[in-house]
């Protein structure tokens, strides 16, 4: 709907940390916090996805409410009084981050690490991360083994490398659900992945845990684009990291337009050593909303360094 066709929205005023803020009706608390430039941690939220409020790091205190509320999905209401940095909020956010980091490999999760530092999270207080009980993909609902409690139970499992374009390392997965949304109803509508299992054994999987080439996956990479922890990673980045050659500080980003069909998707080229090492798209692009297809995301092989006089050189 065009802006001028949209019904006018009422403006409502609420209070955040003793400051008044006015937003359009239908806005979330997070929208209001952004308007006030209150830096709020999020993991499962993304501008181009429907909020699922599963990670709980964005919680805030709402006066009169029994529990903390997730700011990413709770709609703003007139007269609300919000606290974003109370002891209760800080404790809750810290605990969530500690639980995640005690269970999951967060080594490639830059934002989660930054939030942990901000809130002084100490995942070690749950003990060292223990080994998982057998292959997680074989876990059956309700068959969770009881542990000694001496160590923190982990979700480690081998890295899944079953195609040339991206790698799945679910030891790094915090089950934020973004990839499922991007693959499903929020962007791609391919539905190649979903949550399998229940409780602690819940994990992201293809149907019957088949390898990606046997799944419905069409390699748009939009799941990788939204992953906040590096559980999903483009093969090129994964390889460079393994070689110790992934150097974000030596990379620059340039926005251009995809060379393929006439839709005109904005490509953000991540370049290191004069070579494209990753392709994304800015979420604010009205053409892409941050999403791409397999050609735009991966189809830059014709300009890699080896490209020269013969096509065979890059084959």
């Amino acid at each position: 709907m065009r802006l001028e066709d949209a019904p006018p929205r009422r403006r409502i005023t609420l209070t955040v940390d003793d400051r008044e803020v006015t937003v359009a009706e239908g806005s979330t608390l997070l929208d209001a916090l952004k308007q006030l430039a209150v830096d709020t941690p999020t993991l499962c939220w993304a501008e181009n996805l429907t909020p699922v409020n599963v990670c709980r790091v964005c919680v805030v205190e709402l006066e009169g409410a029994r529990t903390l509320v997730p700011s990413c999905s709770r709609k703003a209401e007139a007269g609300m009084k919000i606290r974003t940095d109370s002891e209760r909020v800080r404790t809750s956010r810290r605990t969530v981050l500690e639980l995640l980091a005690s269970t999951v490999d967060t080594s490639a999760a830059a934002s989660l690490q930054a939030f942990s530092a901000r809130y002084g999270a100490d995942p070690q207080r749950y003990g060292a991360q223990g080994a998982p009980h057998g292959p997680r993909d074989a876990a059956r609902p309700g068959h969770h083994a009881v542990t000694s409690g001496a160590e923190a139970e982990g979700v480690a499992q081998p890295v899944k490398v079953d195609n040339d374009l991206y790698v799945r390392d679910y030891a790094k997965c915090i089950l934020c659900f973004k990839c499922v949304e991007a693959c499903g109803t929020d962007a791609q509508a391919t539905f190649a992945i979903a949550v399998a299992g229940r409780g602690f054994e819940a994990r992201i999987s293809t149907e019957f845990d088949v390898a990606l080439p046997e799944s419905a996956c069409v390699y748009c990479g939009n799941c990788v684009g939204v992953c906040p922890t590096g559980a999903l990673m483009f093969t090129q980045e994964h390889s460079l990291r393994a070689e110790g050659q992934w150097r974000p500080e030596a990379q620059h980003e340039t926005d251009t337009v995809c060379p393929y069909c006439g839709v005109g998707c904005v490509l953000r080229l991540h370049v290191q050593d004069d070579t494209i090492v990753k392709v994304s798209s800015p979420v604010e692009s009205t053409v892409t909303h941050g999403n791409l297809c397999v050609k735009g995301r991966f189809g830059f092989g014709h300009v890699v360094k080896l490209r020269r006089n013969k096509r065979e050189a890059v084959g």
Partner: protein
Amino acid sequence: MVLWGSNAREAHPIFFHHVLKAIRRGAKLVVVDPRRTASAAWADTWLSVKIGADIALANAMAHTLIAEGLYDKAFVEAACEGFEALKAHLAGYSPEAMAPVCGVDAETIRQVARRYAQADRAMICWTLGITEHHNAVDNVLSLINLGLLTGHVGRWGSGLNPLRGQNNVQGGGDMGALPHKLPGFQDVEDPVVRARYEALWGASIPAKKGMTLTEMFEAMGVGALKGLYVLGENPAQSEADGGHAQARLKKLDFMVVQDIVFTKTAEMADVVLPARAAWCESEGTVTNSERRVQRVRRALTGPEGARDDLEILGALAARLGHPLGPLTAEALWDEMRTHSPMHHGMSYARLEAEGGLQWPCPDDAHPGTPFLHGRLWERPLRSPRARLSITHDAPPVEALTPEYPWRLTTGRRLDAYNTGVQTGPLRSPLWRETTVDMHPDDAAGAGFADRTPVTVRSRRGAVVAPVRYDPSLPRGVVFMTFHDPDAVDTNTLTIDVTDPRSGTAEFKAAAVAIAALSHSDAAE
């Protein structure tokens, strides 16, 4: 939303994301395509039109709109012309009469026509399934009739949209890379326009329009065109009737190819000018399907020895005795927009700040134009009426015969692009070799097991490829892609009969014979 002759789910995937959003909000999708494509899988209604019978279907819909009084009488009276003639012409296009021609039953034709007419907003989008036919222009005109009759034009959320197949095919036309236009679609045969550009450029411009690509190839065939300068195109593999096209290229006295990779066409050239990739090794703009001009930027140095297109053309102009001085993309753009009214307001600064702008954008304060033809809703109408067109159903040029009994049509797959020059290096897990896709009953009836190698032969040439069973195809139709011409040169089979007005060849309909692989074929 009607997708007509378009498999946007695979060919325009991110456009289709927007369609999917609309579907989730309750929009209805009708897909008109002989194949039950990945796009058709999302449709409320899929019309498996017979190949080349689009006018029969569209005219039967238009007949229904008029016969049932569903057309927008006020709009047609106020803003269109030619209604009475169209009405009389369409008398012979009843759904009953057209059902056997187009392969869609009469009641379905009526229902789709009613839903299209009664929708609050409705849009028809098409691609090459409409335009790669010998009567491409009539195909488009028959769809325009539907939009005009119902008033689904010139309003937000409605309209008639060709989905552009290449990232700057729109921009190329906008900039005057057409034989009859100067930038901004200004007519080259208009002396006033020409005089302005001659003064600007200090050179004379031919007073007559040039040749289309198709006309150039015809001229090569008769020896009237002896030299060719090819920029960023691979006609040796992309032209219909590829064998014929290559023979014509070989007759040239001199050919220059300027490209970012060493294509099949480059192999035939006298001089090859290695260029930088326009989309990531150069500065400039491209224009997408929604007329949005967006910036492309240089992210990579580019290979040693390769030069920017501008630099090459500038150097060439200097050698030809017309030095242009140092050229930058922005300076050229500013010159262009000074003289093209529809681009006036599009400075680089605005394009960058506003995420691109849609033309027309006549001045610095203009926000750009999200949809065209709003003028048709001005009352009283202050501009020319929109013309309703008389179009005649005409089957594909190459009829099926006992000798060539199968209807070959071609198209794209998701993970590949045209002749594969750019997507060749993409290590896609979805990649499949080129196959001869047939309905399983057709293939089994002809005695071909799945994956049997066969020879596909048209009047122009033959290729060898394995059969692939594909139940999404209608009976009698064979589908092939053209993405891997080094292995299977599908365009050897296609027919280069073209629409005289658009110059586009009938890639979508050839007649072929299919036979089990003989020993002599295998030895080739």
